[in-house]
């Protein structure tokens, strides 16, 4: 794995972990029951993708996937501004999903060309699962594409797609506090 691939995999893993957490925030409070189910399932998939990517990266560094996922400080994450925002607004959530899936498909297509079979194989597996997320995003895009609040959300969020990977908002810090609370409450060396 070369340095550029490792950087790219970490960005994707962090995006998927953080977006998975954000998606899970809709469990139980989505505007439709079917979307409670959908967002919960999408969240589970995204965190599964993050886990598989962290495992590849952690092995190279001689640490565990959990250590890589949770034992960094918030400023060390390489997720984008788009995924770290706490959105409790349906139009923006759907707009984020649409923008994210579109961009994610492009970078996965690149990774599928990797000369490292572990990376290209994993990217292909992830891409196949993401097909269902893209269908879901497209369905909502088609439904809302003429709604001014939705098109405004798309325009507002589009610039954040690849922004803020080096510098995060306080919203990521708050999410990190919640995400790592149980882990940090245990003494070092705890056997999970």
């Amino acid at each position, binding site marked *: 794995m070369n340095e550029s691939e490792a950087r790219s995999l970490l960005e994707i893993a962090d995006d998927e972990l953080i977006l998975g957490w954000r998606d899970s925030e809709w469990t139980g409070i989505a505007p439709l029951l*079917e979307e409670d*189910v*959908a967002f*919960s*399932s*999408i969240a*589970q*998939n*995204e*965190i*599964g*993708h993050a*886990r*598989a990517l962290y495992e590849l990266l952690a092995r190279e560094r001689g640490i565990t996937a959990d250590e890589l996922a949770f034992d960094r400080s918030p400023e060390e994450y390489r997720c984008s501004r788009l995924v770290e925002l706490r959105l409790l607004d349906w139009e923006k959530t759907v707009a984020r999903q649409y923008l994210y899936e579109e961009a994610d498909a492009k970078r996965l297509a690149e990774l599928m060309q990797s000369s490292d*079979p*572990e990376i290209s*194989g*994993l990217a*292909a*597996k*992830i*891409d*196949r*699962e993401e*097909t*269902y997320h893209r*269908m*879901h995003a*497209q*369905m909502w895009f088609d439904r809302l594409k003429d709604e001014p609040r939705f098109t405004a959300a798309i325009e507002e969020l589009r610039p954040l797609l690849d922004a803020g990977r080096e510098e995060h908002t306080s919203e990521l810090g708050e999410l990190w506090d919640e995400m790592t609370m149980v882990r940090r409450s245990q003494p070092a060396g705890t056997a999970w």
Partner: protein
Amino acid sequence: MVTTEQVWEALAEIPDPEIPVISLVDLGVIRDVGVENGSVRVEFTPTFLGCPALEVMRDAMAERIRALGAEPEIVVRTDDSWSTDRITPQGREKLRESGFAPPAPREASAPTLVQLQSNVFRCPYCGSTDTRLENIFGPTPCRSLRYCSSCKQPFEQFKTI
């Protein structure tokens, strides 16, 4: 000394943790079994990477192999070489009998929303194709929700992956 056949037989007794009517062998997720000097290496692929049953399956396999008197090594393969096409014919029949429509074959191109919304999917209860997509997602990552307009019954469709 444990043999490859004994390992396959033991693994065939492990039910899928979330759809217990079907075994891990019928589900086709066990990719390879290798036996060498008293240790057994099993390679398997989760249906979806976020499958919450992954650890349960891994532990169940390790336990069965230890019971055969061998040391297990369970390897998770996370590439795209597994597909739902590997579910055995018996496995597909068991799914149908318990109310899960088996997955459609994986085609050269990825499935589309138009395909999922079409009514070619057969109801596992009454056999009608007058069915519609309710939700791409379901109670686990590997399932979608459909509704049969003929017998008025919701059912779960195994996703093609």
